[in-house]
């Protein structure tokens, strides 16, 4: 069983049905159900089709363990960040700060590995990045400020902080090779890279939390209607703070992994990662209006963007910039299709 199967199948089981059960469906007729099913399965179908297209077009060059490993390794940062983003978006918010927070985490990890040793190098980035997420959550939940603006501000703040530590990117810290933390980014457990295992485990845990726990259901309720969630007596403030803190933590984890893989803490890492994460989450079928979505869909969205990127690279005649054109067009097509399908469901 390839690791790719593991990601989609393990996560599909529990939440594919429940994620969208929130959509209103009073006495659905057959057409409605068909539309709902298409909407739910679309990311997986498109992913499968894309993989088949790749297999037909490039044969063994594409359908190889090496290619899949490259795709998966390339998806680690985006995947981890997208997990946090899925929670936040389902709750009706957004987190624009993730890319900068990742860079901050990477810088802190590399910097501490040199100055304070391996334990601090692991703990400090996770702590500080969770702290940034905590600040996001407090300002949004207690300060009643729009998530878009708050996280836009922390986007600037975290990037500024990362640049400040590295003296405006002139002193990029290198990870100390002997410190042992390089195992996080480069190590393998029975042939499978640790970073991929971590990402898959995070996806599985997140899927279980989202669909099998009270907190997860509260997130859906919060995104469906915040007023209703308050009236139901849900601890809305605490949930929100928790969500943004988790998003910051995952971005920090992604930063730690990136630093220990590339052996440096570049403060300019991951520009625009937040936009890619939002795109992957939306392509995975999570509604930006909140209240509906699934972790398995996000996994499919993240993989799909990776496969498309790889296919464009494989077709060497295409300039790399076409990647952006395809991504953008793809995102637009998917959201339009989603909109049309959900309209069909409502009528």
């Amino acid at each position, binding site marked *: 069983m390839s690791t790719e199967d593991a990601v989609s199948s393990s996560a599909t089981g529990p939440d594919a049905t429940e994620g969208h059960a929130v959509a209103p469906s009073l006495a659905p007729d057959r057409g409605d159900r068909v539309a709902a099913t298409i909407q739910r399965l679309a990311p997986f179908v498109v992913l499968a089709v894309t993989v088949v297209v790749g297999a037909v077009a490039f044969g063994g060059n594409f359908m190889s363990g090496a290619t899949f490993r490259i795709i998966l390794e390339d998806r680690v940062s985006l995947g981890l960040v997208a997990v946090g983003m899925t929670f936040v978006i389902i709750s009706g918010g957004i987190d624009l700060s993730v890319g900068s927070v990742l860079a901050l985490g990477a810088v802190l990890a590399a910097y501490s590995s040199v100055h304070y040793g391996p334990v601090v190098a692991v703990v400090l980035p996770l702590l500080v990045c969770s702290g940034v997420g905590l600040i996001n959550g407090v300002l949004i939940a207690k300060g009643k*400020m*729009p998530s878009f603006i708050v996280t*836009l501000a922390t986007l*600037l703040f975290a990037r500024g902080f990362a640049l400040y530590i590295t003296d405006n990117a002139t002193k990029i810290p290198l990870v100390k090779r002997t410190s042992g933390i390089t195992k996080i980014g480069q190590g393998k457990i029975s042939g499978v890279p640790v970073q991929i295992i971590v990402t898959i485990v995070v996806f599985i845990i997140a899927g279980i939390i989202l669909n099998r726990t009270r907190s997860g259901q509260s997130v859906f309720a919060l995104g469906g209607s915040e007023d209703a969630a308050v009236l139901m007596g849900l601890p809305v403030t605490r949930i929100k703070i928790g969500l943004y803190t988790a998003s910051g933590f995952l971005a920090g984890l992604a930063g730690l992994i990136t630093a220990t893989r590339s052996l440096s803490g570049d403060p300019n890492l991951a520009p625009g990662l937040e936009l890619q994460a*939002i795109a992957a989450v939306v392509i995975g079928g999570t509604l930006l209006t909140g209240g509906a979505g699934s972790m398995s869909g996000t996994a499919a969205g993240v993989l799909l963007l990776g496969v498309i990127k790889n296919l464009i690279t494989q077709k060497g005649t295409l300039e790399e910039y076409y990647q952006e054109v395809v991504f*953008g067009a793809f995102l*637009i097509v998917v959201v339009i299709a989603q909109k049309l399908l959900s309209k069909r469901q409502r009528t």
Partner: protein
Amino acid sequence: MSDAAVSAPPGRSSAEVVAWLRARGVYVALGLLILFNLAFTKHFATTGTLKLNLIQVTPIVIVSLGMAMVIGTAGIDLSVGSVMALSSALVPIYLRGYNPWVSVIMCIIAGAVVGLINGVMIAIVGIQPIVATLGTLVAVHGMALVFAHGKLTEFFNSFYNTVGSGNIGPSFARVSVRILTMLVLIAVVGVIVRRSTFGRRLVAVGGNRQASVLAGLPVRSTIITVYMLCSILAAVAGVLETARSGAGNPGKLGNLMELSAITAVVVGGTPLTGGRVKILGTCFAALFLLLLGATLIRQNVPQPATLMIQAVIIVAAVFFQRERGTR
């Protein structure tokens, strides 16, 4: 500037003074910053400094004008930076063998098309502005790079030289073309927002879309027009920036412009929830943010720290705005 309460003189009660200060936070902050510079920065009070600041702030102001209108309809446009990049890619292409005005017009048309796509997706299909314009951000940026083959294209053209760094007007009052363009656009957008029927509709749609639909306003065409105007303004800003650098550079030009513009609009006092547009506030906020960055650098604050200070200012500005919203 668009609500009556703000234009009333400050009353005696402290609450009214606080409200007055809140509504004019940008102007107060800008005033304080200028006083600081007058006291501590050498050669600050010269026309040269003023001109330099105005020249630098031009693209942000022009893009922010469009962004302010979009945010007034409770929308957002993330694609402005990519539209600027598209202009930067198109200018050198249409300079080969054509009149320079052709290239300007082509950029404006391209901008209008992007705005039309945004507007149709948002107003007719019903996609959220942030996702729709995220899609065009990525796709249009890619297209700009494809058109330019990812390269920087230098060009020399006397028309663009004048637009970029020349002056026009009679000898006793020569004005930089950039600054003049900016002032004209501020005036035009100001008149559109405050005096025209379209401006009233824009604010109405942003204030309460359902009520606007029920009142029989052409909601969809209003939204589409707003996004087209926003993209056209971004295209013009792209042309000005391309002219100034004398090269088409879609890889860099316009990068993160959406964040600067949104910041200026929000700090200027336009709420993200729509229903109100503050044109002058936006312009002065853009100037304030630029001057703040310049001042900090002049005072030897490291450049990354200015980003952090900017972040704090955004949060503070929105925090005050929120207080006003609850009154």
